[in-house]
């Protein structure tokens, strides 16, 4: 299991480093906007409960519960604990993405150093962040959104189709396959991401836009670093295993 071990070690270490870096970037760029949006989320139910008596009970209850119907379960308390769990999610998520990146790139011969990893990381950024964000912009709490499962399914389909399109463009030389690649990258946006019934949002448009920019830019840095580290460490670990 020498290859498996080398890939897991390379993914764990690059995930740890890139995940901690990402936590710092998020702490500076995205988390403040999430906390700001949550003030709108907390404020939003107020008008509904105000005329609670005069309205149909079911609709009033639904509008209050819709933004956060998972509030009963345990959640980290604000501050250090919340940051700690975000850091943990970042590190674990980064290790998972690194493992996926390393496994898929093994099929094409494996990452041969940091530059190779950087190119794969930027391609992964295009598939995992850029393409889904075009039709389904990163959302802040309190923003209206379509059914969660439908959005997750569209998100996964878009990431996979875009990744397949990029792979075809890079590794195949025939014109029909290049056309297929372009089609695969465009198709999810022709189908369209699931949209909410109404785009009316308590979150100001400027805040929402600032969040999209912050997510895309921090993710770009994250993927560049994760890819480069994965390439560097994969090269080291497979060499020492051989």
């Amino acid at each position: 299991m020498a290859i498996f071990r080398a890939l897991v070690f390379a993914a764990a270490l690059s995930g740890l480093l890139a995940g901690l870096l990402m936590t710092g970037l998020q702490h500076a760029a995205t988390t403040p906007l999430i906390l700001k949006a949550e003030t709108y989320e907390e404020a939003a139910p107020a008008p509904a409960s105000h005329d609670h008596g005069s309205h149909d009970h079911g609709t009033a209850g639904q509008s209050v519960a819709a933004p956060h119907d998972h509030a009963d379960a345990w959640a980290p308390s604000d501050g250090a604990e919340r940051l700690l769990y975000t850091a943990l999610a970042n590190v674990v998520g980064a290790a998972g993405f690194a493992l996926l990146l390393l496994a898929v790139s093994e099929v094409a011969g494996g990452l041969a150093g940091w530059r190779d990893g950087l190119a794969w990381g930027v391609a992964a950024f295009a598939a995992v962040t850029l393409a889904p964000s075009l039709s389904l912009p990163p959302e802040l709490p309190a923003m209206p959104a379509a059914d969660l499962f439908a959005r997750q399914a569209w998100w996964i389909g878009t990431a996979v189709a875009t990744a397949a399109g990029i792979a075809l463009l890079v590794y195949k030389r025939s014109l029909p396959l290049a056309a297929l690649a372009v089609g695969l990258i465009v198709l999810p946006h022709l189908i369209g991401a699931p949209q909410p019934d109404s785009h009316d949002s308590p979150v100001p448009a400027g805040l929402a836009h600032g969040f999209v920019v912050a997510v895309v830019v921090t993710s770009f840095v994250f993927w560049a670093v994760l890819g480069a580290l994965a390439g560097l460490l994969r090269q080291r670990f497979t060499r020492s295993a051989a």
Partner: protein
Amino acid sequence: MMTTQTQSPNTAATESGLASRAVQITLAGLLGLFIVGGVGFSGIPVLHNAAHDYRHSTGFPCH
């Protein structure tokens, strides 16, 4: 992408080294998928709440 790659060396199992390599790469990929699914897509409320800011900050569909 991964499955098509791993099946061809497996069925042509004449070279066991190649098959073993394919199995190991597939295992690594599946483990990666499992981890990303758990952190980014799980519907379990506790996992969702712990990873809440991460999901929003990386553009995963959240609640």
